[in-house]
C-alpha cells in the first residue's frame, strides 16, 4: 500500500525553511536565439567578446615577454614533486597529468567521505532538534549556531592544532587493537587479495546486477511493488555466499596486512593522514550544522495533520514515517541538500591550508613550478565544475523520480 496525501505539501513554517529554500530558484530556460536580435544585445555581447579578446591578447604578449609559450604540452612533462598520499601509484617521475589525476581522485575520495559524515551528523542533529527532549533541542541549537558563525578555515586550523599537539608521537601511538592513532596518521589493517580476486568480485557484481535488473523491470510493469521480504533475503544470502563459494573453489588467497612500527613510522596496513581526518571532521561538523537546519526545516514544514491523518487511517508509527512523512520530507529537502553537497565539494579545496594533496593544492604546486596559471586554472575549474554538475544531475534525476511517483 502506498499512502500519499496530496493536499498539503506547501511549506508551512516559512520562518524556518525560507532562508534555505530561497537559493534554489528553478533554472529558467534561456530565451530562444534567432528570431530577431536587437542591436543593443549584439553590442553588449560584442563588448564582452572584445574584452575577452583584449585580455587574451595581453596574456599572450605578457607570456612571450616572460619567455613562456602557452599550451597544454607541459602536462606530459615530469612533475618532479611528491604528493602526501595518493590512491593510485604515483612517483615524482610521473607526468603532470598523472599528478592532476591523483589530486582529483583525492578530492573525490575526500568529498565522498565528507558527504557521508556530514549527512550523518546533520540528520542526527536535525532529528534531535525537533525531538522530544528539550535538553537535546538546546544542545542541537547551540551546535548549529556555533558552526554557522565560525569560518571553516578557523575550525580546520583549530582542529589541526589540537590533533597535532594533542595526539601522541608515532612511537607512543595509541593502539586500539590493530589500529594505531598518532599525530601523523591513523594506521589500520587492510585485507589484501591474492591472485584471481576478480572472480568473487565479479560474482558479487553479478548478483547486484541481476537484482537491479529485476527491480527495473518490475518498476516498468504495471504493478509497482517493492521487493518482497523473501526475495530480499535471497539476494542478501547470494551476495554473501556466492563470493565466498567462488573464493573457496578457485582458491583465492586472502591476507591481512597489519601495520607495524618500523623505525620512525608504520609500515604495512592502510593509513589515513591526520590532515585527511581533520578535514573530514571540519567539513563534517561545518556542513553537518547546515544540513541539520535543512532537515529541521523539512520536518517542520510537514503539517501535524499529516501524522494525525495517518494515525486516523490506522497506520503504525513506523508506517507513518515510511509512507507519509519521509517521502514528503525527502522531496522538500533534496534541492537544498544538493546545494549543501555542491558547497561541500567546493569546500574540500580548503585542504590546501593543511597540506593534503587534493586537486586544489596539486594545481597550486604545478602553477608555482611551471608558471602556467591560465591553463592550470582552466583545468582545475573545469574539473570542479564537472564534479558539481555530475552531482546536481544525479540529484535532479532522483528528485524528478520522487515527484513523478507522487504525481501518480
Amino acid at each position: 500500500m502506498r499512502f500519499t496525501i496530496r493536499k498539503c505539501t506547501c511549506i508551512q513554517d516559512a520562518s524556518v525553511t525560507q532562508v534555505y529554500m530561497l537559493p534554489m530558484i528553478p533554472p529558467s530556460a534561456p530565451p530562444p536565439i534567432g528570431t530577431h536580435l536587437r542591436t543593443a544585445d549584439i553590442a553588449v555581447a560584442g563588448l564582452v567578446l572584445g574584452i575577452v579578446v583584449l585580455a587574451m591578447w595581453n596574456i599572450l604578449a605578457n607570456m612571450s615577454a616572460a619567455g613562456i609559450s602557452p599550451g597544454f604540452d607541459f602536462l606530459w612533462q615530469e612533475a618532479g614533486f611528491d604528493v602526501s598520499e595518493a590512491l593510485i601509484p604515483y612517483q615524482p617521475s610521473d607526468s603532470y597529468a598523472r599528478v592532476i589525476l591523483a589530486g582529483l581522485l583525492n578530492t573525490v575520495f575526500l568529498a565522498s567521505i565528507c558527504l557521508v559524515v556530514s549527512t550523518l551528523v546533520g540528520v542526527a542533529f536535525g532529528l534531535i532538534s525537533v525531538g522530544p527532549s528539550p535538553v537535546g533541542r538546546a544542545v542541537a541549537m547551540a551546535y548549529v549556531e556555533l558552526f554557522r558563525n565560525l569560518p571553516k578555515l578557523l575550525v580546520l586550523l583549530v582542529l589541526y592544532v589540537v590533533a597535532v599537539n594533542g595526539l601522541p608521537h608515532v612511537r607512543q601511538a595509541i593502539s586500539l587493537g590493530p589500529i594505531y592513532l598518532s599525530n601523523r596518521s591513523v594506521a589500520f589493517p587492510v585485507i589484501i587479495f591474492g591472485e584471481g580476486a576478480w572472480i568473487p568480485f565479479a560474482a558479487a557484481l553479478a548478483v547486484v546486477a541481476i537484482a537491479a535488473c529485476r527491480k527495473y523491470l518490475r518498476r516498468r510493469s504495471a504493478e509497482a511493488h517493492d521487493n518482497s521480504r523473501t526475495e530480499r533475503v535471497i539476494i542478501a544470502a547470494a551476495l554473501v555466499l556466492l563470493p565466498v563459494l567462488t573464493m573457496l573453489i578457485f582458491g583465492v588467497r586472502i591476507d591481512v596486512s597489519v601495520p607495524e612500527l618500523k623505525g620512525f613510522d608504520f609500515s604495512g596496513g592502510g593509513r589515513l593522514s591526520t590532515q585527511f581526518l581533520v578535514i573530514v571532521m571540519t567539513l563534517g561538523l561545518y556542513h553537518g550544522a547546515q544540513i541539520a537546519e535543512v532537515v529541521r526545516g523539512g520536518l517542520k514544514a510537514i503539517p501535524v495533520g499529516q501524522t494525525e491523518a495517518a494515525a486516523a487511517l490506522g497506520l503504525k508509527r513506523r508506517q507513518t514515517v515510511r509512507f507519509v512523512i519521509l517521502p514528503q520530507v525527502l522531496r522538500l529537502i533534496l534541492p537544498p541538500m544538493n546545494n549543501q553537497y555542491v558547497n561541500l565539494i567546493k569546500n574540500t579545496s580548503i585542504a590546501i591550508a593543511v597540506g593534503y594533496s587534493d586537486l586544489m593544492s596539486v594545481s597550486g604546486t604545478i602553477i608555482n613550478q611551471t608558471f602556467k596559471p591560465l591553463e592550470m586554472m582552466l583545468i582545475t575549474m573545469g574539473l570542479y565544475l564537472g564534479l558539481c554538475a555530475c552531482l546536481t544531475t544525479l540529484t535532479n534525476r532522483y528528485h524528478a523520480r520522487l515527484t513523478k511517483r507522487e504525481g501518480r
Partner: protein
Amino acid sequence: MAARAGNRITSTVREAFASPLAAFLSVISAVAALALFWSAVNWLVVGAVWPWQAPDVCRTSSGICWPFLVEKTRFILFGTYPFALQYRPAIVSLMLIVLSVVTCRRLAAGGPAPDARGLALVWFAVIVVAFVLMGGGVFGLAEVDPVRWNGLPILLMLSIVAVVLAAPLGILLALARVQAGYPLLARLSAAYIETARGVPMLTVLFVGIFVLPLTLPEGTKVSPVTATLVALIFFHAAYFAEDVRGGLLGLPVGQGEAARALGLSYWQATRLVILPQALRRSLPSLVNSTIGAYKDTSLVVVVGIHDLTATARMSFGDPVWRNNALEAYALVGLWFFLSCGFLSAIGRKLHKSARS
C-alpha cells in the same frame, strides 16, 4: 514570579523524561554539554594564567595564557603594520565597523534603504579614505607597502569593500539574466553566474592573483590586495545575482507592465518600481550570502594575504609562544562569532519584517 519560573522548570524536566527516547536523548545531551562546559571552565578559569602572572607560568599550566594575549593581541589585530603608525589601521577598522553597523541597522529598520544616495556617497568616501590611510604616500602620510596591511583592517577591507561593490554588480547580472528580449545578454550572464557558483572560491582567488595581472597591458603592476579584491568582487557578485533573481522572479509580472504602461522608461521602471520590491524580497538571502562571504574572506591566507586568521597563526610561530595556538584562535573565533551573530540578528529581523 518565582512560582511561575519553578513551574516552567518542572514542566521542562517532565518533558525531558516523558518517554524513554526523550530521557535517553536528554541524558546523552546533558552529559555531552556538561563535559564541554567543564573543559571550558577548566581552560578559562581553573588552569588559567592571569595577566599579572609571569609568562613562564604558562608552560606548566593547562589553561588559557592571558600574558600571551596581553603581549600579542595588538600583533593579531594589526600584524606587521609599522608599530608607530598603527593608529591608521585602527581608524580604518573603526570607520568600516561603524559604517557597516549603521548601514545594517538602517536596512533592518525597514523601508528600501532610506536615503540610499547619501549612504552610497558616504560609502564611496570611506572606501577611498580607507585605502589612502592604509597606503599613505600622500598628505604627508608615510607610505606603507600593501604587504604589511595585516590583520583586522585587511579582513574588513576585503570583506566589506568586496560585498559593497559586488552588490551593484550582482544586481546588474540578475537583471541581465532575466531579460527575455535579449537572449545573448541573458545567456552570457547565466553562463557567468553558473560558472562562478560551480567552482571553489580558492580557484577564483588563484585566477585573481596569477591570471588577472597577465591580462593587463605589459608593465602594469597590480598589488595582491587589489587582485584579491577584484577576484572577491566578481565571485560574490554571482551569488548576490542569484539572490536578487529570486526576488525578481517572485515579483508579479504586472508590476513591470503597469510601470511601463504609465510611460516610465525601462530604467525608470526598474529603479522606481521593480528593484525596490525585488530587493526587499531578497534581503534575507542577501544577508545570508553576505555572512558566507564575510566568513570565507579568511581563505585569502592561501594566496598570501595576512588577514586576522593568518596573523593569529603567525602570533604563535614564535618558539616562546609555541603552545598558545588556542588562545590566538579563540580571539579570532570570538570576533567572528560576535560579528556574524550581529549579521544573523539583522537577517532574522529582516526576515520577520519581510513576512509581516
